[in-house]
C-alpha cells in the first residue's frame, strides 16, 4: 500500500491542483473550512497564500475547546478543585480561559488535573485510584464522541463507579445550519471535516446542501487533500452545482463507521447546547441517555452558580461564526497573545487566532 504522508505532502502535486483551481476560477468565492485542524494545516503549508486572490477561506467553528461554553469550563474548574477529584482532560483545554482562572491555574493551586491522550486513560486512572472520583472533561465533535461512548460502555460493563464525565460534546451539522441561517452569512461552499465524516459518514449533509443550495465537499487534512477539497468546491460553485461530494474517500464512506455510530447512539442523545461566543444551538450537543445518567459528573457534585463574564475586547464569537477574521480584532497580537489569551481561539491548537499568530499572518 502506498499510503505515506510524503505522497500527500508532495509540493508538485499541490501546485498542480492549485494551477487547476486558478484555471477554473472566474469569480470571487468564499469557502469555509469547518474544522480548526484544517485551518492550522492550511496556514502551516501556506495553502491560503497559493490560492488565487478570488478564493477566500473563512475559518469555521470546528475548534472544540473554543466552543466549549464558559459555563462548562467554570463547572470543570469547580469539580477539579474538589479535594477528592482527579480531573482528566485533553491537553488543549488546560489554558482555555474561564471567568478568571484556567485549569492550568487550578493545577498550580493544588488541584489534581491530569492530561490524557485517550478517554480510556481516565479509566486506568480510576481503577488505580479507587478512593478518588475521576472526572473526564468530555469535549469534542463527533470524532471524540465514539471514544467517550466506548469508554463509558467499558466503565459500565466493568462496574467502575468512580468514573464520570462532564458532558460537553458538540455536533457539526447543526452548526452548519446555524451559520447558513445567519443573515450575515457569506459562506458559499463548505469543506466538511474529513474525520468527523469518517465516523458519521456524509449522508447528514445531503439535506443541508439541498436546502441551502450550497456545495459541501468532504475533505482530508494533508495539503493535497485540502487542495483537492477546495478544487472540487470551486468546480461546483463555477458550475452552479450544490452537491455533497467526497474528496477523502480513502477514509470516508457515505454511511461512515456504523459501529462507532451505534456506540454514540447507545450512550448519548442530542441535546440543546451552548456554544461559546455563538449561543445556544438546538440539538447541537450530546447528552447522556437516562441509562447512563449516573456517569454525569453534574449529578455527583454540588456546584455553585457563578456569574459568567467574557472579555469585552474579544471577538471570538464572530471569528467562530465566520463573520470576522482574527486580524479584524484590535486585540489580536496586542492585548491577546498565546501567552495571555483573552479568548479560546488564541490558545487552542485548532483556534483560528492561534493559527494566524503562529504562522505569522499578521497583515491582511
Amino acid at each position, binding site marked *: *500500500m*502506498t499510503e*505515506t*504522508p510524503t505522497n500527500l505532502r508532495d509540493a508538485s502535486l499541490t501546485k498542480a491542483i492549485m494551477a487547476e483551481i486558478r484555471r477554473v476560477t472566474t469569480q470571487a468565492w468564499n469557502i469555509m473550512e469547518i474544522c480548526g485542524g484544517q485551518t492550522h494545516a492550511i496556514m502551516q503549508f501556506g495553502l491560503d497564500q497559493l490560492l488565487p486572490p478570488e478564493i477566500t477561506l473563512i475559518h469555521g467553528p470546528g475548534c472544540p475547546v473554543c466552543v466549549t461554553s464558559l459555563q462548562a469550563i467554570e463547572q470543570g474548574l469547580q469539580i477539579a478543585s474538589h479535594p477528592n477529584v482527579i480531573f482528566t482532560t485533553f491537553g488543549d483545554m488546560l489554558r482555555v480561559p474561564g471567568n478568571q482562572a484556567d485549569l492550568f491555574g487550578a493545577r498550580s493551586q493544588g488541584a489534581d488535573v491530569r492530561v490524557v491522550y485517550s*478517554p480510556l486513560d481516565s479509566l486506568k486512572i480510576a481503577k488505580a485510584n479507587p478512593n478518588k472520583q475521576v472526572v473526564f472533561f468530555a469535549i469534542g465533535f463527533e*470524532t471524540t464522541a465514539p471514544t467517550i461512548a466506548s469508554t463509558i460502555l467499558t466503565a459500565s460493563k466493568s462496574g467502575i463507579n468512580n468514573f464520570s464525565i462532564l458532558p460537553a460534546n458538540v455536533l457539526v451539522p447543526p452548526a452548519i445550519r446555524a451559520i447558513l441561517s445567519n443573515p450575515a452569512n457569506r459562506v458559499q461552499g463548505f469543506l466538511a471535516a474529513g*474525520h468527523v465524516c469518517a465516523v458519521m459518514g456524509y449522508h447528514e449533509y445531503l439535506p443541508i446542501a439541498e436546502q441551502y443550495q450550497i456545495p459541501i465537499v468532504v475533505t482530508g*487534512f494533508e495539503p493535497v487533500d485540502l487542495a483537492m477539497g477546495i478544487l472540487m468546491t470551486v468546480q461546483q460553485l463555477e458550475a452552479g452545482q450544490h452537491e455533497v461530494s467526497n474528496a477523502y474517500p480513502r477514509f470516508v464512506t457515505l454511511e461512515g463507521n456504523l459501529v462507532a455510530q451505534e456506540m454514540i447512539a447507545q450512550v448519548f442523545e442530542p441535546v440543546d447546547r451552548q456554544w461559546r461566543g455563538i449561543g445556544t444551538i438546538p440539538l447541537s450537543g450530546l447528552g447522556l441517555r437516562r441509562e447512563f445518567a449516573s456517569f454525569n459528573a453534574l449529578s455527583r457534585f454540588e456546584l455553585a452558580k457563578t456569574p459568567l463574564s467574557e472579555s469585552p475586547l474579544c471577538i471570538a464569537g464572530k471569528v467562530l461564526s465566520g463573520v470576522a477574521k482574527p486580524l479584524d480584532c484590535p486585540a489580536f497580537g496586542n492585548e491577546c497573545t498565546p501567552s495571555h489569551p483573552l479568548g479560546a481561539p488564541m490558545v487552542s491548537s485548532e483556534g483560528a487566532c492561534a493559527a494566524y499568530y503562529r504562522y505569522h499572518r499578521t497583515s491582511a
Partner: protein
Amino acid sequence: MCLGIPGKVTKIYDQDNILMAAVDFDGVEQVVCVATTPEVTLGQYVLVHAGFALSVLSDSEAEETFKILRDLQEFNKRLTEEDQNQ
C-alpha cells in the same frame, strides 16, 4: 483535536474484553483501541484519533485518489508545456 493519524496494524489482541491493537506510525508503535473498527485485519492502515481507530483505509479508494492526482499532475504539466511553446 480532530486530527487523525494513519498507522499500520501489527497486532490485534483482547485486553479485559476490549479489542486492542498495536499500531505502527512510521516506526513508533502505539496501543490503540480498535473496538470501533472490529473488521480490521493485520497489515491494514487505520485512522487513529484519541487512542481509537475511527476508520480503516480503503486501499482501492486510496489507489483511485493517487491515480486522479497523477492524472492532474500530468494534465498540468502538459498545459505548462503548451504555454511555454506558444
